[in-house]
């Protein structure tokens, strides 16, 4: 029971991380209309930002987080405006290749700047205190705070999308781009905001997960593929689907790592994705009519 409970806690922490990264990826797919294979690299770069700010410059913990999130958003927005903007109306595989190129670029530039070695960041010791909960699992303050941080952030995201003017515009663009162009919504600006917002989520994800995960230049691609597993499972472009799928994948991977074999952790995420897709080819919350099949009439 103890073991099971602590695997559940691990799973939920993993799920929080997936929800932030994959939620952003879904936003980019839905609103901007890009298959972004460099998404995980923004998490990697945010990790280095955070390292520089917190370990190198020794800024206070929360200030470092705030600056990392802002910095990543500005960085993401600039990259979008400089390069990815031109991919918007292109075929998905062209987007995949070009962003894969961007990912390779990021990875190797990071290697030049920070060396290929893994860096780890220790969190303030107050966060490493264990708290005991009923079932006997060991939960650290860190776990709780990752969990709450993610929840707060997802609620903010939900508020942004549903209440804020530009957030509503994002949803409108995701539903019908042409209509928005016609009705005078500044689609380009909305896309830029959505991209910056989703890279901000990457920044936050990096800060939250860093104490548990080392950062190194090639880590981005595995974040990307995992985020795609989550987004596809949830239904492309559905942020809500991505959050639900993140919980599923997080729990499945943690339990599989705990009970079956830690060598195959990633494989279970893929396995669950493939199984669910065979039943529902457009994912859990995907549009059932559209984007199913190689081509239609």
């Amino acid at each position: 029971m103890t073991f099971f409970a602590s695997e559940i806690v691990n799973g939920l922490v993993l799920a929080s991380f997936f929800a932030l990264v994959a939620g952003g990826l879904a936003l980019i797919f839905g609103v901007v209309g890009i298959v972004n294979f460099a998404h995980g690299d923004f998490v990697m770069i945010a990790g280095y930002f955070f390292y520089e700010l917190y370990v190198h410059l020794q800024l206070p913990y929360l200030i470092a987080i705030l600056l990392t999130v802002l910095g990543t958003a500005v960085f993401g927005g600039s990259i979008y405006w400089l390069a990815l903007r031109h991919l918007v109306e292109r075929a998905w595989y062209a987007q995949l290749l070009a962003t894969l190129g961007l990912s390779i670029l990021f990875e190797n530039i990071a290697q030049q700047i920070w060396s290929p070695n893994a860096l780890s960041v220790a969190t303030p010791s107050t966060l490493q205190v264990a708290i005991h909960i009923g079932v006997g699992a060991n939960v650290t303050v860190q776990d709780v705070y990752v969990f709450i941080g993610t929840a707060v952030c997802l609620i903010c995201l939900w508020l942004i999308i549903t209440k804020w003017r530009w957030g509503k515009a994002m949803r409108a663009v995701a539903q019908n781009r042409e209509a928005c162009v016609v009705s005078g919504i500044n689609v380009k600006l909305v896309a830029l905001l959505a991209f910056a917002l989703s890279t901000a989520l990457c920044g936050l994800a990096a800060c939250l997960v860093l104490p548990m995960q080392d950062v190194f230049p090639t880590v981005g691609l595995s974040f990307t593929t995992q985020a795609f597993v989550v987004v596809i499972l949830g239904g492309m472009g559905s942020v809500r689907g991505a959050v639900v799928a993140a919980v599923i994948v997080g729990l499945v991977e943690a339990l599989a790592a705990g009970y079956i074999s830690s060598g195959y952790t990633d494989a279970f995420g893929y396995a669950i994705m493939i199984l669910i897709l065979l039943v529902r080819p457009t994912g859990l919350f995907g549009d059932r009519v559209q984007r199913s099949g190689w081509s239609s009439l």
Partner: protein
Amino acid sequence: MTDHVHHGPPNHPPSRFRSLSEVLAPPAARSMLPLFVLVVAVLVPFGVKDAFTLGILTDSLIYVVLALSYDLSVGRVGALSLAHPAFFGTGAYAAAIIVQRYGLPLGLQVLIAISASIVLAVVIGIPAFRLSHLTFGMATLGFALIAELIAQNEIGLTNGPLCMAGLSPLSSGWLSSFGFDQNVQQYYIFLVIAVAVAVFFWVLVRSRIGRAYVAVREDEPMAMAAGINPTRYRMSAFVIGAGLAGLIGAFYAHYLSVVCPTKLDISYTVNLLVILFLGGTGGFWGIIAAAFVFTAIPEALQVAPNIRLIVYGAALLVGVTALPEGFEGATRTVRRRLARYARGNRA
């Protein structure tokens, strides 16, 4: 009644002028191209003596085979699979395991390697082809990752990260009777394989099957209306490509003499995608040229791997963003413009 009306010119007269490309490369010269390339390739070891350069050229030949076999699926039927290294690796591991455990001859190793890759492709293809586009790509990526994890973790079968060694390099008694050393022999063996695969590819894509591949890729409903079963053709392209990758994998295992789990890595997919898309998917010469350019040039220039990857990444990002049809497409466009310009001048 809701059709788009396209008023093309009613009747193009057949072009009376030869296009510039025909002037520059008349059909007779173009039909000589394969022969010319082949002669140069055969003569190379007489001019190139150092093992390093010959090794780079051999690597390029391996990439030619991998890229052409990958293009069957990616370029010909438009199914962007991300599992190709898994087939290559399966071929390599099949050869290594057979050598270590059973000591069977090379011919049998190759046959078993091809069969193993084909079986794996069918196992992956049956579920994956029920999906499409990006979900197909991600499902194949998932299977590729699982294959890599098996190579890493099933130490009893694959030695895991310790790799499998003990394969003897390729040689041929007939070639050594000419006094060629080991490197030259391997170069020629891979040249023969690459030419054989290229000819097979060429015949396949120009056959009825190749025609059906294009039909399925271009317009699936129309292909179905013509009685073509799209899934069957996609599957066949995927499986044939996997078989060819398994074949070259078996030879590659001998060439390197060790097989490691990293041979199944997705970074191979990236290299192959660079070659395919900058060489022009669904092409032939463009892909072959790109296989040499992207394998040989960085090696020959002795660029540090890291810098090379920065260049690769930038090339992929800028190339795909700016040249939608790859280099071949870009040169085609330039040729067309020049031809139009030339016609305009004379008309």
